[in-house]
């Protein structure tokens, strides 16, 4: 067993590479877990909505709370015009939440701990913001970068800064989720490694190893919180960025 903290992130092929359109495409462990995430989400929602009781039981309550959380978020941030974006925000939140939570299971692979996954999702969100903004407002959408009440002399510099800060959104959105997942799992493995190396010393080390073990327990609790919180933050930032497309406040 390899016990360095990076080995958990490696991607390996499960079904051999096929040469399609000049690219080598394979089915990897990352793909497998993405499929598992979809099955978990769909399966849970089907189970939760099986008995359509007026007074919900426990399972149906969880499904309703999950739906209600995202529905309230979309309604509060985007208003009435935001309703068409509810399926997207629900999908993003559910995928990120289940991906993060599945990564907490020992020996499972954390899909969102790879920057390519998170930055792709963030690029999609910001690309959607640009497309929807231009679709809805035409070229007037660029007024987003020209705030009102700014003296004409410094307006070009302010606009440049606004554009740069807009372009940093996909980077920060993707990197936030990626960094949290990567750092969390590396820290967990590092403390687990401390336990192993302390127990190897001898009977004194067995008692000393209790300290990193309790730290690992506390960190696991923190990682569960961070997993849920980062999914929520990804969803609500998606809503906030979409608000910039729908309602160009200047």
């Amino acid at each position, binding site marked *: 067993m390899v016990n360095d903290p*990076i080995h958990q992130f490696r991607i390996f092929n499960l079904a051999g590479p096929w040469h399609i359109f000049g690219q080598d495409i394979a089915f990897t462990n990352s793909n497998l877990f993405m499929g598992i995430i979809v099955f978990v989400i769909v399966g849970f929602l089907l189970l939760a909505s099986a008995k359509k009781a007026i007074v919900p039981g426990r399972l149906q309550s969880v499904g309703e709370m999950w739906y209600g959380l995202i529905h309230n978020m979309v309604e509060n941030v985007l208003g009435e015009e935001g309703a068409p974006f509810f399926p997207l925000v629900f999908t993003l939140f559910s995928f990120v939440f289940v991906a993060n939570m599945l990564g907490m299971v020992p020996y499972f692979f954390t899909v969102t701990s790879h920057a390519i996954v998170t930055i792709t999702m963030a690029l999609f969100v910001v690309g959607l913001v640009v497309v929807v903004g231009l679709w809805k407002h035409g070229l007037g959408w660029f007024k987003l970068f020209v705030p009102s009440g700014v003296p004409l002399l410094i307006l070009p510099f302010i606009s440049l800064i606004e554009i740069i800060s807009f372009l940093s959104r996909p980077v*920060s959105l993707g*990197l*936030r989720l990626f*960094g*949290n997942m*990567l*750092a969390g799992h590396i820290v967990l493995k590092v403390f687990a490694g401390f336990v192993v190396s302390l127990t190897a010393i001898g009977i004194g080390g067995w008692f000393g190893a209790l300290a990193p073990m309790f730290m690992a327990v506390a960190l696991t609790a923190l990682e569960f919180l961070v997993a849920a*919180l980062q999914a*929520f933050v990804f969803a609500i930032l998606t809503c906030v960025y979409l608000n910039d497309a729908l309602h160009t406040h200047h």
Partner: protein
Amino acid sequence: MDANAAKLIGAGIACLGMGGAGIGVGLIFGNYLSGALRNPAAAGAQFTNALIGAALAEGLGIFSLVVALILLFVK
């Protein structure tokens, strides 16, 4: 100084950035608590905003941790 030693020192310096993140998150929750003690009825409605602000502030500390991890583990 060879490159590997410089990388390790750089990783240690990059971790100093997380101090700012700790201060930022503490500021947000400290302000939330002092506001909640003054107006407990309005506290629940703003807890969501406090969590969002804390995640955004912590994100910047995580970026500096990512720099440190890249320096440590990318050959």
